[in-house]
C-alpha cells in the first residue's frame, strides 16, 4: 500500500504569548491523496490557518510544533532543515494567501515576481523565464498577459492579483496547493471565476488541494472531502455529501444551519433564538415615505459618475436592500444618504423634508442627524481604539443628545447594548479585547443608541463568520420589526439581502439596473447583471455540487 500524499498525524502546535503558552492545535489528523481536494472549514480562531502554516512549516517565531508528525510523500518533514524546506516549498508544496494584494510585493512587477519564484527552483535564462511567466499568466486566464507582465500590483484589480498569486503558486508544478481563504474579500462574481480557475488548474495538473474557508457554500461546491475544525480540533471529517447531508457533530450541525441556502429564512439560520414579535405597522394613508431619493448623482471628478441618477424610496419602517459589486457606487450612496457626503445633483427627502440642502459639513447641527445612523462594514475599523465599548456607545448620546455622565446615560447605553445583544460585562473592554462579532454588536448598539429612524447598514456582516452573521441578521430583523427602524441594507450578497429586505435595488456602475420586491427579483431576475450576481452567490446547497464538479469543466 502506498502512503498518501500528505499525512498529518496528531499534529500539535503551541504559541508562546505574554500570558504563557497557548495551545492552538490539540492533535490534528488529516490525510490527503494526490489529486484530491480537501476542505478545512471552521470559524475564525478554529486553527484552520495555523494547520496550513504548520504543514508548510511557516509558523512565526512564537509558534512551535509541540507534537505529532507531518509526512509529505511518505517523508517526515516535521523536523526537516531549512535547506530541505526551501526545496519543498514552491516546487512540491505551495500556498495562496487570503489577501492577494498584501501578499504581492508592491514595488516589483508581475514578471519579476514570477521569475523570482522560477529562479529559486532552477537555473533559467532570462528569455526562458519570461516565456514561462507568460505561459503561466495564460494558464490563469488573465486578459492581455503581455501587458500584465509589466504591471505593478496596484495596477491590477483584486481578482487579477489573486490570479497572479495562483500563477506564482503553480509556477513550479507543486503536488499540493494550499489555498487559505482564496476568495475572501473578492466580489461574488470574481469569487466564482477564481474558484473555477483553481478547480481547472487542479484538474489539468493533477494537483491535490487544501481549501481553507469559513464559507460552507464554497467548500460544498468544490471539495471532495471536508474536515470541520473547532477550537484546534478536527471535530468531524468525511466525504462532502455525506458530511453535509447528515452532520454528526453538534458544531457541524450549527454551521450547516447558519449557512444560508436558496430557500432559508432568517428563522432557519439561528433556530434557538426567541421568536420575533412583529408590531403592527401604523400606516396612515397620507404619510410620506421615510426616505426618498430623487435622481441623486455624485461624481469624484473621474470620467464616470460614482452615483448616476439614482431614485428609490423606503417606506416607514421598511427595509430596502442595495446590491452591487465593489465600485458600483453603493458605499458612496450610503454615505450620501447619511449626509457624510454632498450629492452633486438630485434631492434626498427624509420624512417629507429635503435634507440634501444642508451641506454635509453643517449636517451635525441638523435635528435629522440622530434620525439617520450608520453601521460600518468592517467592525475592526469602525470603533475608536481609545474608547471602551461603553464610551463608543455613549458617544452619539454625549454628542447628539448632550447627555452628561450619570444614571440617564448609563441606562441608555445599557439599553442599546441590550438591544444589540452585547453582554454588559463587555462594556468596559477596548475594541482590541473584543471578537469580530462582539465589535459588530458594539457598532450596532452605537448606531441604535440615539434611537434613529433609519439605519444604513454598509455590509455589516461581510467580515463575520456565518454563525455570527446569522445572529446579527436576526438581530437586525428584530430591531426592524419590534422598534420599527427603517433600514437600508447595503451588500454584495443577494441571498442575505433577500432574507432581510422587502425590496431590492440592484446597482451597477452607479446606475439602478433593476428594482422590485426581493422575492420577485430573486426568483425572476430581469436584468442580465442581476442574473450574473445571482449565479455567483455561493449559497450552501450540498446537492448543487455535482453539476459543478471540476471534472465537468473539460477533461
Amino acid at each position: 500500500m502506498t502512503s498518501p500524499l500528505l499525512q498529518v498525524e496528531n499534529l500539535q502546535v503551541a504559541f508562546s504569548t505574554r500570558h504563557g503558552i497557548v495551545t492552538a492545535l490539540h492533535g490534528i489528523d488529516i490525510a490527503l491523496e494526490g489529486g484530491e481536494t480537501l476542505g478545512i472549514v471552521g470559524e475564525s480562531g478554529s486553527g484552520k490557518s495555523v494547520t496550513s502554516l504548520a504543514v508548510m512549516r511557516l509558523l512565526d517565531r512564537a509558534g512551535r510544533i509541540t507534537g505529532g508528525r507531518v509526512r509529505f510523500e511518505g517523508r517526515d518533514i516535521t523536523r526537516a532543515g531549512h535547506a530541505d524546506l526551501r526545496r519543498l516549498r514552491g516546487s512540491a508544496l505551495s500556498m495562496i494567501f487570503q489577501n492577494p494584494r498584501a501578499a504581492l510585493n508592491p514595488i516589483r512587477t508581475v514578471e519579476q515576481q514570477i521569475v523570482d519564484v522560477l529562479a529559486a527552483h532552477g537555473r533559467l535564462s532570462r528569455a526562458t523565464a519570461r516565456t514561462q511567466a507568460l505561459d503561466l499568466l495564460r494558464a490563469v486566464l488573465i486578459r492581455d498577459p503581455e501587458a500584465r507582465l509589466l504591471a505593478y500590483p496596484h495596477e491590477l484589480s483584486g481578482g487579477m492579483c489573486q490570479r497572479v498569486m495562483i500563477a506564482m503558486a503553480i509556477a513550479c508544478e507543486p503536488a499540493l496547493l494550499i489555498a487559505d481563504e482564496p476568495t475572501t474579500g473578492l466580489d461574488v462574481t470574481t469569487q466564482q471565476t477564481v474558484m473555477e480557475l483553481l478547480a481547472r488548474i487542479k484538474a489539468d495538473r493533477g494537483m491535490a488541494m487544501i481549501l481553507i474557508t469559513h464559507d460552507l457554500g464554497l467548500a460544498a461546491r468544490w471539495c471532495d472531502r471536508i474536515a470541520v475544525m473547532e477550537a484546534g480540533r478536527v471535530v468531524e471529517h468525511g466525504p462532502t455529501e455525506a458530511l453535509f447531508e447528515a452532520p454528526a457533530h453538534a458544531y457541524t450541525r450549527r454551521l450547516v444551519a447558519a449557512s444560508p441556502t436558496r430557500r432559508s429564512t432568517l428563522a432557519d439560520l439561528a433556530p434557538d433564538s426567541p421568536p420575533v414579535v412583529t408590531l403592527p405597522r401604523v400606516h396612515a394613508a397620507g404619510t410620506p415615505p421615510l426616505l426618498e431619493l430623487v435622481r441623486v448623482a455624485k461624481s469624484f471628478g473621474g470620467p464616470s459618475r460614482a452615483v448616476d441618477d439614482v431614485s428609490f424610496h423606503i417606506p416607514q419602517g421598511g427595509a430596502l436592500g442595495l446590491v452591487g459589486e465593489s465600485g458600483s457606487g453603493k458605499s458612496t450612496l450610503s454615505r450620501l444618504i447619511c449626509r457624510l457626503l454632498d450629492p452633486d445633483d438630485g434631492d434626498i427627502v427624509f420624512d417629507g423634508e429635503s435634507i440634501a440642502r444642508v451641506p454635509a459639513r453643517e449636517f451635525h447641527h441638523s435635528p435629522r442627524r440622530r434620525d439617520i445612523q450608520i453601521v460600518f462594514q468592517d467592525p475592526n475599523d469602525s470603533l475608536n481604539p481609545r474608547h471602551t465599548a461603553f464610551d463608543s456607545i455613549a458617544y452619539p448620546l454625549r454628542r447628539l443628545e448632550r447627555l452628561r455622565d450619570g444614571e440617564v446615560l448609563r441606562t441608555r447605553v445599557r439599553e442599546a447594548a441590550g438591544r444589540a445583544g452585547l453582554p454588559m460585562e463587555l462594556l468596559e473592554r477596548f475594541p482590541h479585547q473584543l471578537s469580530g462579532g462582539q465589535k459588530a454588536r458594539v457598532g450596532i448598539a452605537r448606531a441604535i443608541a440615539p434611537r434613529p429612524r433609519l439605519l444604513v447598514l454598509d455590509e455589516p456582516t461581510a467580515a463575520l463568520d456565518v454563525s455570527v452573521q446569522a445572529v446579527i441578521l436576526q438581530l437586525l430583523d428584530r430591531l426592524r420589526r419590534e422598534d420599527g427602524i427603517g433600514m437600508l441594507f447595503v451588500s454584495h450578497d443577494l441571498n442575505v439581502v433577500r432574507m432581510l429586505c422587502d425590496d431590492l435595488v440592484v446597482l451597477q456602475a452607479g446606475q439602478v439596473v433593476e428594482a422590485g420586491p426581493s422575492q420577485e427579483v430573486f426568483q425572476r431576475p430581469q436584468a442580465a447583471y442581476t442574473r450574473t450576481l445571482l449565479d455567483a452567490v455561493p449559497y450552501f446547497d450540498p446537492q448543487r455540487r455535482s453539476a459543478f464538479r471540476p471534472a465537468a469543466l473539460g477533461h
Partner: protein
Amino acid sequence: MSEAALIGRSGTGRHIAYVLRSNPVTALAAFGTLLLVLVAVFAPALVPYDPVASNVPHALEPPSRTHWAGTDQLGRDILSRIIFATRLDLMIAVSAVSISFAVGAVIGGFCGYRGGRLDRWVGRFVDVLMAFPLFVLAMALVAALGNRVENIVIATAVINLPFYIRFARAEVNVRRNAGWVEAARACGDSHLSVVLRVLLPNVLPAMAVQISLNLGWAILNAAGLSFIGLGVTAPTPEWGIMVAEGARFITTGKWWLVALPGLALMMTVLCFNLLGDGLRDILDPRMRT
C-alpha cells in the same frame, strides 16, 4: 465620573505597573524624571547655600565636606546652583515643548485631515523652516527678540514646531479614512471636533515619544543658547552658563566647575530619552492585553 472611566483608571494603574515591571530601564527613567521634578519643586528647601551669594575667600574650592560639589570663581556653592538650575531648565524645556506640541499638533492635525491646498502651503512653509540650521535660527530669534528667558522659550518652541506639524500630519493622514472617523461624524461631530476629539487623542501615544525626546533636546538647546551668551544672563543659575563660565578654568585643573553641571545636564537628557519608549507602551490602549 462614568463607571467606564473608573474601571479604565484602575486598569491604567495596573497597566503602568506592568510596563514598568517588565521594562526596568523605563522604570529607572521614570524614577529619574520624578526625582528631577521633585528637586525642581523643592529646590529652596534642598539647597545648603544661597545659589547667588558670592563668598570670594572660598572661591574655586574643590568638592569637600562643606561644599559637596565645590565652589566657583566667586565662591558660590556649585551644588546649590545645580539644584536651582533644574527649576529654570525644566521650566524652559516644558513650556517650549508644550507650546510647540499644542500648536504643531493642531496645525498638523488639520493639514492631515483636510489635505488639499492648506496642506501643501503649510508643508512648504515647514520645509523652508527646516532648511535653516535650527540652532542658528534660534540664535537669530533670541538676538532679535531680546535676551530674556521667555524669548528662549519662544525660540525653542519655534525650532521644534516643524517636527510636530509633520508628525501630527502624517499620523492623522493615515487615520482620516478609518471607519471610526466617519462614525464620529455620524454621531454628530463636526470636522473640527473630529480632529480635536477623535483623531488627536489617537495620535497622542505616538507623539508622547516625540515629546519626551524633545524635552531633552530643548534643554540642550536652552543650555546651548546660554553657553554662547544668549538668553539667561550671568548670576542666574543655569547649567549652560555654569558650563560656559567654568570652561575658562578647566585648563587649570578645576574640573568640577564644568563636569558637575554637565553631568546634571546629561543625566536629565538621558532620562527623558529613555522615558520616551516606555511612554508609548503606557499610553497606547492596544498594548493592554
